[in-house]
């Protein structure tokens, strides 16, 4: 188990060893090999973000490495930029490609992400062959001798093997620092969406944007590695960035544990010994490497991929103890919002799920939606949350038309929905999940999180405070470090409420929160929701539990369903609300 100080010490010791390596490795070939290994680690670190954190099986990393290499080489040879500017351009080319690819595959399922990125890697290779006048074709694009003139110092730095090696190590250290900076927030949000994308979306995480961001960051690191690889080799080598490199990088992160940089280092080491081993047994490394790579990949996938190795060597650290909780009142300082809907219509094929339903939810009230199964209650909640687009009608939040606002935007405005099902955030703790739920309140993104700007640090502190208070309010303060999959059903539902509260919910859209709860748990839920309502939060409650509705609801809307004479009826909550839906359908 690695503590924060232990990790920092480990990285520091590793950095000193790595930076001092040229004192030991004196041959230019050895230094170049070491630089190449460090740069492969950087490219693999990019995959840690995309594969390990975001759960996107990218098989295109080799292509991004190639774009970085060729971007740099072309900038130097055709536009005569100095190596620094050329490297920046190479990274930019890879980054743009990564962003485009990220947007293209962000909404796809894992197999299609793999396929899309794989095709991207091939496209890079084919482009290199197709435009030999630009890329140098099979002979590669030879870079001129590297030197950078620093005007302010009046000196010229020659990019010797030692300089390039040290540059590679510095890039690796920056990468490690970036990953560390992102671990508290970015990796958490990506993990939540990786394990349960619909759950993350319901919590206000813009899943597609985060996934596109992960692939972009992955490409940035690959591009930087590629740029330096070309400088080290002195040539943008068409044989070096082929699809096999993508597979190797993918394998590197899987072998050692996809969500840990240390895992990438271990994976790299495993692959690095293939060549010497092949040589030792008298085989040719070039012939053996693809076969061994393929066999290892199969083995890792067959034995459970990331989780095959991770629990033994790289058990995830426990969640940090939550900071001292502010009083729940501070959490509940938000004003509940008013919500109204007019003439909502939704048709699924031949079924009219909603047929002109209207709804008025006063700010700070509890509004129950009742009706028989299939009457459209969940559909109505999904329309209000922006998950389903209505065929007709209007939805307003505090009088503002939000009918066409996407779900993420509504979540940012305070409209939070919980799911009927439990969250599937395997391996993440209750605190992790609630903290990820604070995303809608944040204004800083990847780069300010990386730079740890004052605003980013303040937001992090606030988010952790809100998460802690929300857990306390939901009665889960003592369960903060319990993995989500070990929470029982009732706790899972309360966890979703806490998640919504941490994200600054002004209106809670609750979908059968008491389903499966026993009496004691139901009472707890009743008490918590009562507290929320009493403090001014608006609650929209889809519920079958008559007692809960009677105890909490100010008004009730009854949905009649597709076969009812009236599509809906609204009114004050009667003393015995069961009468609303106990009538036989016509």
């Amino acid at each position: 188990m690695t503590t924060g100080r232990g990790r920092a010490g480990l990285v520091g010791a590793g950095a000193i060893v790595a930076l001092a390596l040229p004192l030991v490795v004196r041959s230019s070939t050895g230094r170049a090999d070491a630089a190449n290994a460090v740069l492969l680690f950087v490219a693999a670190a990019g995959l840690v973000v995309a594969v390990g954190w975001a759960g996107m099986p990218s098989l295109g990393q080799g292509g991004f490495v190639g774009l970085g290499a060729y971007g740099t080489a072309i900038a130097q040879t055709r536009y005569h930029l100095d190596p620094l500017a050329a490297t920046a351009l190479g990274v930019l080319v890879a980054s743009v490609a990564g962003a485009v690819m990220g947007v293209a595959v962000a909404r796809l399922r894992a197999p299609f992400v793999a396929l899309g990125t794989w095709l991207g890697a091939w496209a890079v290779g084919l482009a290199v062959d197709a435009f030999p006048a630009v890329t140098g074709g099979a002979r590669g694009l030879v870079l001129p001798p590297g030197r950078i003139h620093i005007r302010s110092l009046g000196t010229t730095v020659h990019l010797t093997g030692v300089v390039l090696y040290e540059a590679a190590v510095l890039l690796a250290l920056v990468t490690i620092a970036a990953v560390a900076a992102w671990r508290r927030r970015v990796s958490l949000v990506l993990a939540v969406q990786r394990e349960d994308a619909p759950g993350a979306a319901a919590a206000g995480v813009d899943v597609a944007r985060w996934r596109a961001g992960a692939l972009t960051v992955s490409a940035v690191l690959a591009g930087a590695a590629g740029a330096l690889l070309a400088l080290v080799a002195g040539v943008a080598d068409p044989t070096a960035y082929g699809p096999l490199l993508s597979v190797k990088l993918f394998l590197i992160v899987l072998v050692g544990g996809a969500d840990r940089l240390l895992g990438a280092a271990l994976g790299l080491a495993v692959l690095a010994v293939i060549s010497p081993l092949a040589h030792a047994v008298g085989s040719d490394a070039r012939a053996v490497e693809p076969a061994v790579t393929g066999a290892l990949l199969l083995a890792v996938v067959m034995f459970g991929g990331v989780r095959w190795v991770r629990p033994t060597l790289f058990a995830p650290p426990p969640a940090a103890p939550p900071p001292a909780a502010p009083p729940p009142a501070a959490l509940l300082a938000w004003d509940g919002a008013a919500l109204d809907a007019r003439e909502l219509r939704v048709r699924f094929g031949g079924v009219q799920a909603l047929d002109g339903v209207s709804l008025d939810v006063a700010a700070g009230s509890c509004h129950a939606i009742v009706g028989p199964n299939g009457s459209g209650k969940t559909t109505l909640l999904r329309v209000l949350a922006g998950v389903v687009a209505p065929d007709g009608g209007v939805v307003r939040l505090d009088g503002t038309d939000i009918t066409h606002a996407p779900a993420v935007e509504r979540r940012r405005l305070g409209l939070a929905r919980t799911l009927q099902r439990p969250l599937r955030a395997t391996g993440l703790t209750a605190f992790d999940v609630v903290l990820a739920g604070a995303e809608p309140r944040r204004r800083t993104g990847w780069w300010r999180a990386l730079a740890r700007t004052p605003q980013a640090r303040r937001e992090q502190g606030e988010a952790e405070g809100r998460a802690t208070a929300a857990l306390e309010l939901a009665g889960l303060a003592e369960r903060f470090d319990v993995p989500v999959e070990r929470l029982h059903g009732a706790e899972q539902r309360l966890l979703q409420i806490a998640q919504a509260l941490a994200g600054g919910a002004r209106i809670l859209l609750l979908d059968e929160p008491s389903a499966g709860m026993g009496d004691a748990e139901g009472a707890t839920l009743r008490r918590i929701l009562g507290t929320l309502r009493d403090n001014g939060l608006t609650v929209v409650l889809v519920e079958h539990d008559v007692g809960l509705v009677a105890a909490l609801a100010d008004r009730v809307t009854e949905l009649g369903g597709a076969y009812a004479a009236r599509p809906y009826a609204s009114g004050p909550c009667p003393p015995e609300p069961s009468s609303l839906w106990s009538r036989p359908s016509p």
Partner: protein
Amino acid sequence: MPTRALVALVAAVALTLAACANGPSTPKPSGADAVIVVSAPFAGLPSVARPIERGVRLAVEQINGAGGVAVEGRRVRLRVQLADDQSSPGVAAANIRHAAGIGAVAVVSEGTGVDAGWQDADRAGMPIGITYDGDEELVDPAGRPNVFRVAPTNRGASFRLAEYLVPKGLRFALLHDDSPYGTAGGRALDKAFVRNRPSVTADLQASAAPGGDPAPQVLQARQSGANALVVWASPPVLAATIRAARQAGWQVPIYASTTGEDPLVRQQLADHPQWLDGLTFVSSRLTSEKGPKPFETYRQAYEKRFGPDKVGVTSGGRAVIAPPDWAMYAYDFANLVADAMHRSGAARASAELVKGMSQAEILGANGDERSFNEKNHEGVVDDDIFFATFRDMVWTPVKDDPLSATLPPVPQT
């Protein structure tokens, strides 16, 4: 203490460093040795790499057998170190840097990575000898003072080919592959045929990637109305091109670059030996004006040391033997390096050694004089190109070319 993580990190670093330390297996040269590094595609294209290695090795063993190279009153023994370039410019350039790093007296290469590595070699004063690739851009005495070649040039081969073919009045489809050898050859063919462009019906490129199939290009060539196919491609692509044409029933005459005599082509067409009949290829002549005796002497020494280079096919029931003509270029270059060491008094890479290369002069394995000077780094003159045609898996010089017609047949069985 984060013990497990520390162990993992140490293991990772150790393994990676172990891998970094991996290089060509020969130990560093001792003070009395001079190393010649052979950088070639040993795994990917052994039919190209092995002759280079063997040519260098034979020369080195003969020199050492005679006591080594006389350098300023002492005898320096030569040693050969092999490095697979994996057909990768980056790996080949790294091999060249490695050679420069250990103070090798020369790198002998088939041509890959010279573009990327010659400057490092030049700084170290290390000559590079190209003994396969004929790309004219590789050798430039003014711009690349340390790069030399002993091999037929693409320029010579392509112009002689055009000179030989155009009078036949055929309509040519030119086909090259996208390997470095093929792309450079494609450029050379374009230049050679530029004055007779109307006779070219198609100019096509095929993929040299493993598994690449040139059948679509062959079809295009046929559809273009060509009645002759000129192929400049790596051995597997040439074999696949012949196969595609003949399988389609297209009995077009096929003219090939220097790879036509590569054993791989014959091996890959061993199931249909008749498909190879009539294949005409271009090469540099094996014999000099002094007759076949010098080459035969060299050949006997070569075959005594390594055994005959069996092609892996038979002709008239007898195993076909490849004459060691490509090994001859590497053999001659190694001897030129030894001569340069002797003349310059340099036992290690140095500016003097590079300068000495421009004064080196030897009698080559085929009896020709091989030499360089400050303005010429080509060891094979462009006029020394001949043509040969296959019949039953062995080739004989053609009779309809004045130079080729004078050449004696070379025993191949």
